[in-house]
């Protein structure tokens, strides 16, 4: 069954792993396959080409990617839930009003805007990359980021191989991996932050709608209502043109100042409820919107980092190269089976006495040298010598055979060039020679080396094998020196 559509993240995980296993495929085959697929792809974008190749090369393959994607999705959901739960809790605490003590706007802004804004600054410090001046600080704050916690949980749940685990290490040496890990961390933390702010906002809206919240401001500091009005107007500046009713007036600010010892100093309850549009828009403007922007940026950058993760892998780099380069093949499609070794080599002939006749094959040695060699190495005296093979005609071979033919039981020595292979025409000649001299005569093949050198072990073995293959019990090869 074809694999369902995959995400870029899944492909960035699975393609390099599949290519690693694909190393077992012969290089020529890989080149041909990838080039063929490459020629069918219309995309010019490298990421699209690699993903198109992946769909064509391994349509049924399911790797670790989908599992990691599921884990990633689950962690995203958990981060959103955690953020939302925290948001609801914090909003309920900040907006707490039992009719006795109105909600303190100062505390509200501190809890729902200032503290999250500080966290926002901390998040922003992680964005510039690991620049020298910030690195120490980044190392310090990154583990405190909720995204880092999510990343650590993800690493545990993923049970990834060491190679994959590096992909989720924001300190990784390869920038693409570090970049991916960083943006994943930022993404998760922003998901939690957005969920937090949405939950705060939703809780606030519900409380405003279904309860009678009253607001006031109080502080121990020596701040007069005019100063507070200026601060409030500065806070409300982003929306003062669009929603003027959400900008508290100087009168409202003055009427809302509250001292706990000064009971009854507040204006009537209806007037005090007028703060709620201001509080909601403050949460939206300084809590939710920056987080939404940051989440949007993080998602875009994460997407780019996933592409980088895919393309930066050297195996993928080579795949892209194979798709773009003409496939050059030079090897054979299949190879011959190795020939089986012969059953046994010819027996080695060391020494004998008496007289012998000789055939010198392919003029490999002079008659005098052959005579001396036979005397010294074989202990026989050559009484006759004939030449055959080489540049001579087949008729000359027959004449040589005729000169050997006799009913007399004797030894025939055949001198051959050791450096030449035992050709079938020589083996034909030896067969005919056996027929002529009878089964009782010994035939000794003597490979002779050229120049001053000795016959090598390989040469001797070659001759012993070829002669042994004839299965003639009285056909020998001179024993190795």
């Amino acid at each position, binding site marked *: 069954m074809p694999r369902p559509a995959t995400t870029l993240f899944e492909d960035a995980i699975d393609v390099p792993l599949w290519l690693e296993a694909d190393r077992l495929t012969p290089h020529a085959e890989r080149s041909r396959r990838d080039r063929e697929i490459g020629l069918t792809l219309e995309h010019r974008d490298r990421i699209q080409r690699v993903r198109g190749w992946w769909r064509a090369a391994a349509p049924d393959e399911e790797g670790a990617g989908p599992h990691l994607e599921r884990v990633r999705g689950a962690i995203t959901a958990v981060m959103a839930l955690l953020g939302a739960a925290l948001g609801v809790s914090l909003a309920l605490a900040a907006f707490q009003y039992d009719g006795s003590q109105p909600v303190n706007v100062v505390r509200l802004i501190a809890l729902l805007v200032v503290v999250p804004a500080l966290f926002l600054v901390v998040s922003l410090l992680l964005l510039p990359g690991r620049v020298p001046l910030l690195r120490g600080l980044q190392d310090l704050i990154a583990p405190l980021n909720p995204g880092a916690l999510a990343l650590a949980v993800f690493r545990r749940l993923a049970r990834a191989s*060491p190679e994959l685990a590096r992909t989720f290490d924001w300190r990784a*040496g*390869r920038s693409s991996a570090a970049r991916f890990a960083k943006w994943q961390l930022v993404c998760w933390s922003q998901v939690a932050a957005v969920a937090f702010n949405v939950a705060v906002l939703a809780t606030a809206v519900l409380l405003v709608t279904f309860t009678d919240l009253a607001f006031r401001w109080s502080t121990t500091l020596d701040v007069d209502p005019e100063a507070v009005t200026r601060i409030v107007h500065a806070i409300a500046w982003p929306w003062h043109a669009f929603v003027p009713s959400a900008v508290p007036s100087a009168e409202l600010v003055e009427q809302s100042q509250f001292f706990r010892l000064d009971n009854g100093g507040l204006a009537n309850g209806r007037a005090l409820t007028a703060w709620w549009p201001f509080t909601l828009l403050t949460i939206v403007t300084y809590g939710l919107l920056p987080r939404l922007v940051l989440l949007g940026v993080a998602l875009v950058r994460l997407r780019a980092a996933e592409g980088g993760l895919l393309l930066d892998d*050297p195996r993928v780099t080579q795949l892209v190269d194979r798709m773009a380069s003409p496939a050059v093949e030079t*090897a054979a499609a299949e190879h011959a089976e190795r*020939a089986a070794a012969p059953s046994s080599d010819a027996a080695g002939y060391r020494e004998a006495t008496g007289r012998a006749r000789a055939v010198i094959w392919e003029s*490999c040695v002079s008659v005098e040298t052959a005579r001396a060699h036979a005397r010294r190495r074989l202990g026989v005296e050559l009484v006759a010598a004939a030449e055959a093979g080489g540049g001579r005609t087949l008729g000359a071979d027959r004449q040589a055979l005729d000169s050997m033919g006799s009913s007399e039981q004797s030894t025939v020595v055949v001198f051959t060039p050791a450096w030449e292979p035992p050709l079938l025409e020589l083996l034909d000649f030896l067969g005919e020679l056996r027929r002529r001299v009878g089964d009782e005569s010994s035939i000794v093949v003597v490979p002779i080396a050229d120049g001053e050198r000795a016959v090598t072990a390989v040469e001797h073995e070659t001759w012993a094998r070829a002669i042994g293959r004839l299965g003639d019990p009285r056909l020998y090869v001179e024993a190795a020196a």
Partner: protein
Amino acid sequence: MSVPRFAIVGHPNKGKSSIVATLAEDDAVAISPHPGTTTQARAYPMRLDGDTLYELIDTPGFQRARETLAWLEAHDRGAGARAAVVREFVAAHSADKRFSDECELLKPIVAGAGILYVVDGSRPYGRQYEAEMEVLRWTGQPRMALINLISTGDHVEEWRAALAQYFSIVRTFDAVRADFGRRIDLLRSFGAIDESWAAPLTRATDALVADRERRLRAAAVEIGDLLIDSLSTTVTVPLAGPDADAAALANGRSKLQERVRRRERDSRRSVQEIYRHGALAIDESAAPYLVVDVFSAQSFSVFGLSATQLAFTGAASGAVAGTVIDVALGGASLLLGAGIGAAVGAAGTLVGAGRLAKVRVLGQPVGGYELRVGPITDLNLPWVLLGRALLHAKLVAERNHARRDSLALDARAGAHLADDIGSDRRRALEDVFRRLRNERGVNAADGSVLIETIGRLLESEAAAK
């Protein structure tokens, strides 16, 4: 236009298969010191995107050349009909086992293949070859003789004089030792046999040269990747508490070293695959510098930089950082930045020598502690890894596909390779190594610098060869 086809023919055991293995870059071709290894003709097509540009055909050797020639002469109807008589010979004997080798080798020729006749120039010429050459002349096909050098003897001139009687082109070609350039030269020379083959052969050789360049770049990517992965590798060991004992430290170091060793092995395998030497083994006795452990003192002494070189490399890259300050100050610093940068760089280099890797105990966000070992901080290890990888890639790239022995080094290959790396390249590399040591990550630009520098080092090795 027909595809050029070349039948590699000759006496048995004279290196026909070696020539095919070399030209086809196919180390699976059966090659043996014993004759009769090739019993059937086999085609080795050179394809470019599926189009065959030429084809080499390995054939068995002549076994009964004189009998074959005798048959041809017995059926001779004049010079104009000789090619037809050869065809008749093949037709008449295709079922005759006695002439199976002759039929196998003559079939592609009568079908139009050019002839590459191979002899062994290290052994004496003999008149037994004349029957073979005469049979080939009867075919009337374009032909060239190649004098291969299997052993140490020298009978080349003797052979050249004899071959010139039968072939208009005679070339000497050492199948086992020929480098890439010589192989390309030989392929180009095949175009001289028949002018209609020159164009496809030129296209083929151009493609092979381009493919070779791509492979060099692919090898550089592999080596660069080895360095990035090895130098940025970290391993972790779970700890019971916030303190790491000696056993945990040893365990961490050992895991880190094993990770680097495995990465080096993988990288070598990849480089061998790139050069189509997938099955190549490294012989311990023939290539000790490559077999010895990467962390051994021997590796460091052969491939590492000397203390002075390290100091100068550190000083040079420190000076670059200092110069940036000078430029920023518009020269108001009187180049003090460069001087101070150099001094700091050199001092840092010497102080940092001898330390393997960064070691830290980290608290985990999900609870518990772990010992993190890495990245590598030893200043010489990058150079050791690089030197070993360059040497290995150089040997593999030069390696001829006709060879069946293990990978071996020549006498000079183990000399201080770092000495061959110029100071500017050393500085560029050291900048990347420092980024990795400092966990700053290697971005695409750094990666390009690394691969480019390694590619040039591989190129200069190839050029030096």
